């Protein structure tokens, strides 16, 4: 007969095992361990820790037999990490485990199994080998709802990736405990408690993503095209501009002192820096924050000199202010403002109307609500879609980006882009313009570099913007789907030029997911300065380290890709812009038919390549035979 604690232990081991061990034979061995140990009814937590320690003890022998010493060290490190992890979160986890939980997901069969809470994950396993387990990062949970029917509790978990799942939990107390644990664990304030700090990769990092896109490298490329620019270390300790990186590309003729003065004239110290150099005609795109002209029209000679230095003699440039003139006027009262024509005679200012972050967040919430509306009424859907304004934002951002690209490529003029802070709409415009203009940005590497350059290093406050998503109940602080809107715009261009991008839609969706919840440290923090302080590059794994592995990359490759060196001008007519179903209807529709059709398309493309090769090799073979035969035939 089995000891009472054995089942408990077995599942404890199992959970620890699945937590860290994907290697199946190892997993089986660990499960066998349970037969040797018998513990009397101890709480699961203790068991788990004990098991973790046990694994630590047992591992050397277990692993050595498989992969050698190096692996062992890695395993040990991982297990000890987890033991620590469990201790730290133990007090937040009131009920770590419930049996008989039923999981409902749209378009998937219900799963009954055991629900486990760990420091960073919500796990549901049916304990059958063939069914998929649910692993949900607590960080991915946007909000939860509780419902009770008798003693059966139901928790509806709404995720930041817009998925909604339902868990039926027998027992009111368990349900309440689980709910409050999830709430506590999904709203941890401290960054250093986030999962990336605990995550250890189960793959070998061949190419460290943290070192992939350094400003020096980008500058080398620039140097090969022009000598008008230099790399300034003025922001070395992040004191001139806390949201800028330590190295910045600025006009050669402007010294660091002038930069400091210009910085004091720009919101948040974000003085104009180079964003993009258009090789074709040498025009540039710069970005900055709003100038602090205030109500009395302050000016700053250094700022004027700085941006004039980017103009060729006799040329005019364009300043694209992402705000409407009215909004820009209002900003004056708060010390902000815009460039006065009188002080910037060589520049022509154009105002566009990209909305600010809180408006965008509201728009996202409304859009997702519309998409989740189960009513089948056509009018209701269209009016809700319209009321969300999401598509309008997409159109406006794309239009502004096209305008910037048009100024550079068609008009041969340099451009300066800014909004208020220069960390949101500005980056949407500058990065999209580069996708339109620069074929390199349409490759996977190039796109990663673009995100690194124009978003991460440029100081888009990812952590603030992505703290909550569309299901958040709380008052929005500075959350906003700025980056998601950018991805949506990229998707629109991808739809219109399906053969011009090396990556596919999945790549964009993956990026969206990782900005909100991830095992990687890439999107933690709000600026380079913060990331340095958090020591992310030492303590966490970079998303790029994982994505760039060939076996992962495969999922993100566009089979239709054919490099296209042209500037690609998307249509921004409302009829050409579509709702991004891959994100917003992702969990509300069955994609089986669409996926199969996609597979068929991939199959046709691959079969074509195969046939090409076959024909080539046969022809070569034939040609060879013919030359061999010729001497015999001719006489």
């Amino acid at each position: 007969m089995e000891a009472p604690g054995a089942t408990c232990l077995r599942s404890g081991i199992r959970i620890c095992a699945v937590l860290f061990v994907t290697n199946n034979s190892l997993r089986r061995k660990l499960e066998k361990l349970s037969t040797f140990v018998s513990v009397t009814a101890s709480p699961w937590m203790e068991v788990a820790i004990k098991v973790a320690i046990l694994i630590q003890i047992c591992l050397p022998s277990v692993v050595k037999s498989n992969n050698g010493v190096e692996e062992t060290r890695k395993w040990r490190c991982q297990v000890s990490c987890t033991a620590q992890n469990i201790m730290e979160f133990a007090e937040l986890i009131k009920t770590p485990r419930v049996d008989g939980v039923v999981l409902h997901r749209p378009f998937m069969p219900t799963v009954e199994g055991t629900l486990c809470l760990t420091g960073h994950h919500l796990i549901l396993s049916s304990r059958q080998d063939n069914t998929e387990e649910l692993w949900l990062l607590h960080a991915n949970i946007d909000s939860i709802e509780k419902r009770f029917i008798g003693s059966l509790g139901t928790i509806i978990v709404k995720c930041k990736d817009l998925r909604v799942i339902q868990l039926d939990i027998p027992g009111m107390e368990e349900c309440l405990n689980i709910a409050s644990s999830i709430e506590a664990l999904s709203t941890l304030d401290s960054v250093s408690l986030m999962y990336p700090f605990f995550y250890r990769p189960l793959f070998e990092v061949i190419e460290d993503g943290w070192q992939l896109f350094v400003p020096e490298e980008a500058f080398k490329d620039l140097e090969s095209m022009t000598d008008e620019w230099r790399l300034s270390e003025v922001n070395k300790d992040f004191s001139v501009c806390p949201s800028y990186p330590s190295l910045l590309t600025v006009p050669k003729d402007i010294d660091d002192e002038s930069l400091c003065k210009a910085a004091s004239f720009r919101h948040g110290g974000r003085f104009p820096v180079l964003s993009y150099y258009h090789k074709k005609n040498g025009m540039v795109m710069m970005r900055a924050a709003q100038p602090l002209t205030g109500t009395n029209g302050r000016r700053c000679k250094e700022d004027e000199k700085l941006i004039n230095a980017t103009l060729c003699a006799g040329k005019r440039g364009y300043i694209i202010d992402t705000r409407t003139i009215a909004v820009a006027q209002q900003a004056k009262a708060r010390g902000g403002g815009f460039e006065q024509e009188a002080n910037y005679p060589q520049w022509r200012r154009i105002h566009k109307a990209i909305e600010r972050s809180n408006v965008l967040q509201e728009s996202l919430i409304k859009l997702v609500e519309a998409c989740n509306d189960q009513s089948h009424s056509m009018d209701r859907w269209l009016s809700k879609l319209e009321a969300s304004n999401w598509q309008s934002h997409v159109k406006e951002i794309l239009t502004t980006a096209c305008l910037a690209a048009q100024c550079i490529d068609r008009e041969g003029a340099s451009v300066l882009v800014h909004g208020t802070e220069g960390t949101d709409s500005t980056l949407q415009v500058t990065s999209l313009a580069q996708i339109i203009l620069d074929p390199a940005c349409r490759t996977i590497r190039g796109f990663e570099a673009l995100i690194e350059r124009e978003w991460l290093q440029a100081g888009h406050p990812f952590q603030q913007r992505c703290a909550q998503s569309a299901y958040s109940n709380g008052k929005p602080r500075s959350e906003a789907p700025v980056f998601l809107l950018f991805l949506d715009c990229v998707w629109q261009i991808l739809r219109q030029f399906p053969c011009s991008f090396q990556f596919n839609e999945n790549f964009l969706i993956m990026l969206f997911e990782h900005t909100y919840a991830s095992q990687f440290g890439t999107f933690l923090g709000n600026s380079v300065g913060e990331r340095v302080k958090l020591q992310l590059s030492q303590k966490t794994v970079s998303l790029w380290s994982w994505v760039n592995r060939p076996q992962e990359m495969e999922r993100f490759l566009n089979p239709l890709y054919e490099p296209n060196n042209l500037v690609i001008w998307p249509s921004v007519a409302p009829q050409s812009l579509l709702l991004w179903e891959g994100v917003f209807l992702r969990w509300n529709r069955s994609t089986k038919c669409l996926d199969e059709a996609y597979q068929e398309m991939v199959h046709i493309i691959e079969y074509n390549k195969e046939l090409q090769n076959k024909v080539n090799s046969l022809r070569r073979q034939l040609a060879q035979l013919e030359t061999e035969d010729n001497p015999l035939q001719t006489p």
Partner: protein
Amino acid sequence: MEHIRTPKCVSKYVVEQVKLLDRFSNKSVTGTLHLTATHLIFVESNSTSAQEIWILHHHIASVEKLSLTTSGCPLLIQCRNFRVVHFVIPRERDCHDIYSSLLRLLRPVSYDELYAFSYNPKQNDQQREEGWQLIDLAAEFERMGVPCDQWQLTDVNREYKVCETYPRDLYVPITASKPIIVGSSKFRSKGRFPVLTYFYQEKKAAVCRCSQPLSGFSARCLEDEHMLQAISKSNHNSRYIYVMDTRPKLNALANRAAGKGYENEDNYSNIRFQFVGIENIHVMRGSLQKLLEVMGTRSLSMTDYLVGLENSGWLRHIKAIMDAAIFLARAVTVEGASVLVHCSDGWDRTAQVCALGSLLMDPYYRTIKGFMVLIEKDWISFGHKFADRCDQLDPDPKEVSPIFTQFLECVWQLTEQFPQAFEFSEWFLIQIHEHVHSCQFGNFLGNSQRQREDLQLKERTYSLWAHLLSEKQNYLNPVYSPSFAESHPVLEPSTQAYHFKFWRNMYHQYDRSMHPRQSILKHVLTLKESNRELEGTVQALKTKLQKFGVSTSPLKPQTPPRERSLPPRPQSLILGAPLLSRKEVQQEEDEEVIGEEAREDAPASTGGERTVEGNSATENGYGELKESFGSKNEPSVVTLEFGVARMTC
């Protein structure tokens, strides 16, 4: 202009220096306008791109002379295929001449004036006859398993005596005797009594169609009740039949005052009566008008677009038709019940619902041939009034309505949800739509079979179906999977509102700036064709190698090789398709030559020369800086025509 293919002799009127304005941007091109007996032709003067626009007079819905501007006299032409062209003609007199000739030309008074009677695709009589024999409805009913022990062919309408607008051959329950049929027909509007249109063999359930009963407030007709009884009895799987009145209840009620109405459940045994709520032809006409008005707005904002889409109600109507068809398909396939469908006269909404319902139930109708059969059966033979609805002749504006367009759109909506279920792509649907209005082929002329026989269409005109089949490869859906039909014999589309989308490629098919600049469809279609050629090449090479005594492993064909070689693809059919350059054509021919090194990337190399369209920022509608930012390098976009006109030369 010697290079123009316009035959000088036909050319009645030539105006030079005419400007063609783009509908959505400030772009314009200059060229020459030719007016011929059948077409209005615009030829761009710029010799490098030299785009030509051919507009068939029958396609023109309206011509409008706008007020004089400094650059000339503007002429706005709206077409039924949703093309809108805006010319500016330098001299007012020329403009007026063209305007008045067009007005005369686009209102033919007799059928003989229609293009179909002068169109000659250089076929002999035998080919023409074969074209007309392609679709055989008797064979179609046989395919469904009719006649059978419960359903038979009746000759009651052989002479069109019982119902003028029905075809001669009709299928009725075996137990429905002639007196019952005649009696029933007298109780139905326009004599359109219940007849079989689709037979679901698996459950022996029938889809029947008719017009509304002349029940008024209390009238009843025993023969009609017997007729429904007979339909019900012929299906042993179900004790009841559904009667679907596709109108909104209010409309049906209003009809009672005129002595028409709907079936009273008390008088008919075992019927389940159901209103579906599809609006009438007038509402649909207004809806499309509103839709086109909104979509034609320049620099349309996203808000106006979505509000306009909603206010037009167009997608709501599309969804209503789809809902009805789904209801029909479920009743038949799940419950195994027979269904009788009607509306008022039983030739508009009834045709939509029966055809779409059959398409959901039967994979055959999702093939190219099957779709033709479906249209021939539920639309042409059962008397959808194409002449009236499509405004072919002597127009009564109140009779015009986009009923058939809606049906095509419903099919398109389905292709979006089930990309592998259809043998054809949307260009097939669009091409059919084009020709429903072109009057180039005889199929859609007139309002009923009887009228078509009187017009001797089969002797005097050509069949569209033969024409479409001859260029079938342009309409293929490259990801079509026959095995999908096996696993999904019945389509069950979702009716969530967000699945219904605006069909840009139909309503903006000529507004090229709005389309994706690279077409996946075209790309994959080309690859698939290339795969077929390559398979042939591999075989040929192997045979050659075998002559040298080399044994080669047989290539496992992943797609069954086709037996016939493909006719050369007309260059212009698929929108977004680049014209093959002469060099490429040469290369494709070269491919047959064995022994040459294959180009490493043969189909991809087409990509090397593939133009990415829309390289002009100005045509995309964000030309904010129009005064100062003139676009300098327009791309050499050649407007591709749907090949309609070219056949005449």
